[in-house]
């Protein structure tokens, strides 16, 4: 049986194909960490005048759903990525890390 992490990576990748965010081309998607610190890490080529690469880290799951439904959680990842791009104007003012990746933060509300 495919692990939750493998399902999440697969579904998020497919979601970004069927609901593409214009100007982003996936370079890699992986899951890092363990337990509550587990994150899905996405790196994109930024095909806008800014160029370079854009990164986004987001929890691979949270306590509201648990590790039960990668399909539903992938929608949360997509929506938060889209909002982060909007809020940071493609990370235009975020300095890239030494690897040349501008990491955009998620726009979270309050619990």
């Amino acid at each position, binding site marked *: 049986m495919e692990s939750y992490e493998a399902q999440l990576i697969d*579904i998020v990748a*497919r*979601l970004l*194909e*069927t*609901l*593409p*965010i*214009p*100007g982003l081309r996936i370079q890699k998607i992986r899951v890092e960490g363990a337990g509550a610190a587990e994150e899905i890490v996405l790196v994109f080529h930024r095909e806008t005048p800014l160029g370079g690469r854009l990164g986004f880290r987001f*929890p691979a799951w*949270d*306590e*509201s*759903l648990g590790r039960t*439904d990668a*399909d*539903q959680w*992938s*929608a*949360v990842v*997509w*929506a*938060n990525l*889209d*909002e982060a*791009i*909007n*809020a940071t*104007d*493609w990370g235009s003012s975020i300095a890239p890390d030494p690897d040349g990746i501008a990491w955009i933060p*998620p726009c*979270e*509300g*309050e*619990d």
Partner: protein
Amino acid sequence: MRKSDSRDGAGIAAKAVSVRVTGTRALTRVAVAALLLTGGGAVPASASSGAAAFNCTGRNPQHILARYGHSADGAEYPVPLRCGNRRWGYKHFAHRWSNSFESHLERTLNDPTVQQRGGSTRVVCRRVNASPERQWFKVVHTTDPGDRNLGIITAVWEGPSGTCL
């Protein structure tokens, strides 16, 4: 009557259906609004009044606050708005909430300009053209044949990502 700040600039006769659930009892109210064009702005003749912020204190993330969208459009609607948490649902975008915001949310789900689907994810957009920064209102939600779906994940004015286009 709640006045909307809609700046659609188009004549609309749309049925807005919202079901708000409040309190521990299943108190529900269905408001059917005929949106009438007056002076360049659409004003709901009768809308879901009392659009004050919801109270999710002590509530489970799955707690349903309201449902939005035409039930006639299929099993996907009306879609629930749950308390959620800082990453999805009402708590995720509560800081944007207002009567006007709720009105845009209702209209977007009732009468979208663009709908996109990917798996169980739906991106529903309505062209508003309120200002250069407020061209599109966007709602992202999930669907599920049962009631396991998250419902509305977020509602937001579209920015430069351009996913509504």
